[in-house]
């Protein structure tokens, strides 16, 4: 059993689901059984946004130590603004709006990569500084702030089938596709190879720089797309709408069992971790804990997970 868990990689992400289920059960007990299904439904809906940004962040982190995308929050905000102004409340413009948000992300991702490659700035500094540029652009652009999302988009984000948000089902299909990309495409394998040893990857014929560019661009494109979707879900754009995605994108990746040392990643864990994070917040709210303590616990949790994962790697 243990060998099977290790070999299939299930061990990497099982922990996140165990955590999510535990937290949900505790919440149900605290609330005397009230709203158990509602909490889960809300979690499944909200998890979509966490999972989408975390998917991009996961590919970035998997390319090895030092790789991280801190521009996600700003890109979410800018993507939302661009999408809302293109859509201009019209159902017919929903698809162009999403395409514009993705294009915005591609531009941001390419800019991030250019900073890292051409100016040899460490990714953490490059993406952080570019996030200021992107956030300032979002403020300056300003449009979309007062625009309501198209009705069809809003309806879509709240549509459900048997208590499961339709948006969630679509996102699950998307992450399954990304799991195939990670495991079965040359690009996905290149990411994992670079994450283990960039020099060996280069000498084994992997196009290291192209893979890095695609990865940073993918992350920002997903952030832009998420911004558009989140604007539809929350009824419009606000300038700080991306802020929550900074910690969330990293926490979901790490708790989901992706190695911060690079070279090991999985997609199922993102859903477990996203649900876990949302339900944890719900549980703490139900228990009447303040937001300061919530943040503290989230931080402690990330450290605990990294320590546990790191300990296991040392022993290997």
């Amino acid at each position, binding site marked *: 059993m243990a060998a099977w868990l290790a070999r299939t990689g299930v061990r990497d992400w099982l922990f996140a689901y165990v955590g999510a289920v535990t937290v949900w059960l505790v919440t149900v007990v605290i609330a005397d059984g009230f709203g158990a299904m509602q909490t889960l439904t809300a979690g499944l809906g909200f998890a979509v946004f966490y999972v989408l940004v975390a998917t991009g962040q996961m590919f970035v982190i998997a390319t090895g130590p030092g790789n991280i995308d801190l521009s996600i929050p700003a890109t979410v905000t800018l993507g939302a603004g661009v999408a809302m102004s293109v859509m201009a409340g019209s159902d017919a413009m929903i698809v162009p709006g999403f395409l514009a948000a993705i294009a915005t992300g591609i531009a941001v991702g390419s800019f991030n990569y250019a900073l890292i490659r051409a100016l040899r700035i460490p990714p953490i500094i490059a993406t952080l500084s570019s996030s200021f540029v992107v956030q300032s652009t979002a403020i300056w652009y300003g449009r979309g702030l007062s625009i309501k999302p198209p009705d069809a988009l809003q309806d879509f984000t709240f549509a459900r089938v048997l208590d499961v948000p339709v948006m969630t089902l679509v996102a699950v299909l998307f992450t399954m596709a990304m799991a195939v990309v990670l495991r079965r*495409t040359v690009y996905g394998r290149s990411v994992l190879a670079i994450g283990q040893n960039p020099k060996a990857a280069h*000498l084994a014929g992997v196009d290291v720089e192209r893979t890095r560019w695609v990865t940073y661009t993918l992350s920002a494109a997903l952030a832009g797309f998420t911004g558009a979707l989140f604007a539809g879900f929350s009824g419009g754009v606000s300038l700080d709408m991306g802020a929550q995605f900074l910690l969330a994108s990293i926490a979901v990746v790490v708790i989901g069992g992706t190695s911060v040392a690079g070279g090991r990643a999985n997609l199922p864990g993102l859903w477990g971790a996203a649900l876990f994070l949302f339900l944890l917040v719900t549980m703490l709210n139900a228990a009447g804990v303040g937001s300061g303590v919530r943040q503290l616990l989230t931080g402690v949790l990330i450290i605990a997970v990294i320590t546990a994962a790191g300990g296991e790697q040392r022993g290997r």
Partner: protein
Amino acid sequence: MTALVELGGLEKRYEAVRALDGVDLSVAAGEVLGLVGHNGAGKSTLINVLAGTVVPDAGRIEVRGEDLTRGYDVTTATDRGIRCVFQELSLCPNLTAAENTRIVHRSIRGHGWHERARALIMATLDAVFPGHGIRPDRRIGDLSIGRRQMVEIARAFTETETPVRLVILDEPTSSLDSTAAEQLLAYVRRRQADGVATILISHLLGEILSAADRVVVMRDGKVVADRAASTLARDALVGLMGHVAQQPGAAAGRRRLDAAKVLDGPGPGGRHRLELRRGEVVGLAGLAGHGQTAALLAIYDRPRAFAAEAALAFVAGDRQADGVFPLWSIRDNIAVRSFAALRRHGLLDEGGVSELAETWRQRIGIRTPDVRNPILSLSGGNQQKVLFARALASAATIILMDDPMRGVDVGTKSEVYALIRQEATAGRSFLWYTTELDELVHCDRVYVFREDEIVAHLEQDEITERAVLQASFRADTEAVA
């Protein structure tokens, strides 16, 4: 007279390699000892044992008549006045010469330490390299490589609590100009009067013969000669380093001069062109670290500069740093170079990947019951076979090999030699950097590197250990560039 240092029966193994195979060595106070040998002869291991950075498997270490074998380490060595200047500089580039000096002298402390450290290193620099022109407040990283080396050497001669008794200089003149090199050797001889002994390692045999009192020659982890320098000439020394029996060109008679060139470009240094023909196995020889790996990487990264049309594959020699993907299975480690070719409808064909890995497991004899096992479950030699399989399983027809047989057992070696020959006959071309003289008999031609240049081009019938050694070690009569 008691020897300053007395080493007896030292043994050290690395996997299959006997780096030290029963070495006895004694150094007297005030003696300059030259230590020579080709790559892998055991020189580095020997001086690392003396410096306390390598613990021998067996043997005895005595300093000034005191048995220190048990628990001998760097601190023991430095406390007894044994100093080491390694080939790779060990100064911190972000600190000044004075600060780097303080690091090795714990007694320089308290108020005014900076001034005292500066005075100490400057006095030694002035004594060793008069007119050196080094400012002690410059960061090491801002100095030229030659001046960095001067600081490194001078620091080894600085004294505070313990007097310097033995200084080991590993290729000390490699980045010094000829004036500084002469100054250093003159200083070493002056310090003999104070009883300071020196062990000198150099690929400049003239330097060894003129500076040393005694020369020790190592080969295959053993001391094969120990003679007064005055009784030796350069040719005799070269002869001692190689094996006695030597027949050139085991691969004789199969070279095709008419085969098409697959690589053709200016060789490093510009004196010789670097060429590789279809079906050829060409060796890159010379002492380790004289530019062979850099030449291979230059070809790999800019194949157009060498008119390469065909795909290239690289076989790394430093498995952990450049070769293995530690999280992956043997299967994926073999197939990674071929992933792009193993796609079906844009996705990796898992069956094809397994088939490829299984084919090569059998062909190259990787000792594992299942290619899905982790790569790290294999021994070093078998991991190396995986790296060979990775290159040979790919479509690449030009194979660059970066000293791939390091630390590989004899059995694996002979299997791989046969495979290389077989693949060359089938039309693949190999450029093979090797630090082992024995391996050159498997080559059709050899380029010898020295100081980042190709200094000799040996045709098949000229490949002898002697010829390679002659080219690898510079004679002093040759002009210094």
